[in-house]
């Protein structure tokens, strides 16, 4: 017979959160499925929307950076170059902006029933996976069409996709928990995402950026991930030391986000 002890939790109780997450995995999938269903309910084009938005953004960014600012795409067709960047960025920005408001929108549930709260922002990373797959398939179509030279390391794109998911989850945890106390983040996050679209090398590359302030770009974990993705796919120049900056930042964001969320979830129902 399962025995539940109810008392004030002290300390980090990380193990408890993880074991509960495993126990409630079905709910995690159900919430993700719900979000996905609702996103395309009563739409005519359905999942095609998952391609239209990143494609238009990739077109726009390659127009701005390649044609107007004449940034080099190192022999890759600009639209393909931009689209490869958009695969990661589009997923990341979707999950972060959905995760940002996720707890507030689920506050009624939080007040009425118990489940590990971490499921709510995490479900957003799963709900956005079908979109990610659709954009990936579309990118593959572009690759087959333009026939660029593919690197032998192409399998490593999987690693960078995994890092994209981790980065999105980390920021989702941070912002959703911050929103509990400070609703300001409801306004701050969309703004940050818009800035991110330009400071992340989607339509351009950091290869030719002056090394004096190149490291600044890599403080943004998405910079390392997207550059890594293009390195794995096309064999473009990639500097690992800079990549380690991105990875370290990501590591701290993830661990910090998890701990912060854990701390905030104790009395979430009282303060939300």
């Amino acid at each position, binding site marked *: *017979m399962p025995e539940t002890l*109810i008392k004030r939790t002290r300390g980090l109780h990380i193990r408890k959160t993880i074991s509960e997450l495993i126990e409630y995995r079905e709910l995690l999938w159900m919430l993700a499925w719900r979000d996905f269903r609702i996103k395309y309910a009563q739409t005519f084009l359905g999942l095609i929307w998952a391609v239209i938005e990143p494609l238009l953004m990739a077109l726009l960014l390659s127009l701005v950076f390649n044609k107007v600012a004449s940034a080099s795409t190192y022999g890759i067709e600009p639209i393909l170059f931009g689209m490869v960047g958009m695969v990661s960025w589009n997923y990341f920005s979707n999950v972060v902006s959905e995760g940002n408001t996720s707890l507030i929108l689920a506050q009624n549930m939080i*007040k009425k029933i118990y489940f590990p709260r971490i499921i709510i922002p995490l479900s957003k990373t799963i709900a956005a996976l079908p979109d990610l797959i659709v954009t990936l398939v579309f990118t593959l179509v572009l690759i087959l069409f333009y026939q660029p030279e593919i690197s032998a390391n192409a399998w490593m794109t999987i690693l960078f996709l995994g890092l994209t998911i981790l980065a999105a989850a980390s920021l989702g945890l941070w912002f959703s928990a911050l929103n509990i106390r400070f609703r300001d983040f409801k306004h701050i996050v969309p703004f940050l995402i818009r800035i991110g679209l330009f400071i992340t090398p989607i339509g351009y590359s950091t290869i030719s950026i002056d090394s004096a302030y190149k490291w600044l770009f890599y403080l943004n974990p998405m910079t390392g991930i997207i550059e890594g993705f293009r390195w794995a796919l096309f064999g473009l120049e990639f500097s690992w030391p800079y990549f380690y900056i991105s990875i370290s930042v990501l590591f701290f964001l993830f661990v910090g986000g998890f701990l912060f969320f854990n701390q905030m979830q104790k009395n979430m129902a009282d303060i939300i």
Partner: protein
Amino acid sequence: MSKPIIEVHGISKKFTIGKSRSGDLRNSMTKLFSFSGQKKQDIWALQDINFQLNAGEILGIIGPNGSGKSTLLKILSRITEPTSGHAIMRGKISSLLEVGTGFHPELSGRENIFLNGSILGLQRKDIVANFDEIVDFSGVRKFIDTPVKHYSSGMYVRLAFSVAAYLNPEILLVDEVLSVGDMAFREKSIEKMKQVAKSGKTILFVSHDLETIESMCNKGILIQNGKIESTGKMKTVIRDYTSKTNKSHNEIDSISIKNGFDISAFTINEQENKNQQLIQSGDKMVLAFNYTNSGNHKNLTFRLEIKNRQAFTLFVCNNFLTGNILSESGKTGEAICTIDKTPLNTGNYLISLTVLSNNVVVFQNNKTCIFEVTRGGFYSTGFMPSNEKLFLVDHHWTLK
């Protein structure tokens, strides 16, 4: 002896008010840099709650609004943490603080059953196994693939309750959810809950509906201002609660006229009635009062008016109506009125007494006593209509 299913030891919960904890950045910034600070005030929503429940016991928690009943249920369902104290729950817990948690209007009835089921902690395979039963119980099979935004509110609630009805925990925590839906569905859901109760589950039940809670629970707790005020058998706890509220709100004995005539004692079924008396529906009710007729009034008429809570007169007992001529003898006497079969439904009632002599009022007491009617065997079947039906009437049916 096996250990109790639920053990609650000294649970307390403190809320801090006057300090908004969710808000905006500017607020926190100003607080960070100012030393004055807002005055904080601690409110103890619950203080030192202790009780135990064994397997199969059904506990009813009653108390006025804001007394802390729901906070207690939230702590036991792990939605919020206690400030101090602890509780041990032995068994799988389900809590039902609301029906239809997580229902989404865009999703169909079928999809919402699965979604809501998993939010309530049901496994997918359990939902699949019970799916047909759930749909049949709700009675919305025809619309099961329609988005619930097109449902009427009644259909919505019925579907939501039906999912919850198929939870299969060892411990069930329920808050006020049986008061949903139309009358017929309400009866059905209360029946369902009683079935669950009979199957040996341990249930904690919070409600304002004293009638339902009395018929379902065998143990009770009365919480007032965050503290346990009374515990024991559900019936006794309810009586404690109603007598407390009546004492404060309904001062008995509001005599408006007293003219050479007085009542020294009033009894119902030979019991002194000071506070509240319980009578079972359908039982014999003997109302008796001792009087002193110091003014030597002749031709006395006694009139008892039975009123409901809203002071609406339901019926009157009058010896002039029945033709019982009471030939008074001397200065003192006892008048007795017998109602063979109490025709009232469950609820609280008030008696007002008026005495007339030659059509002149010599005594009037608008609140002679308060009594409560509980479920009883008015109909030999033991069934009762829901309690907004005021009267019970003897009748029978035949087919020709």
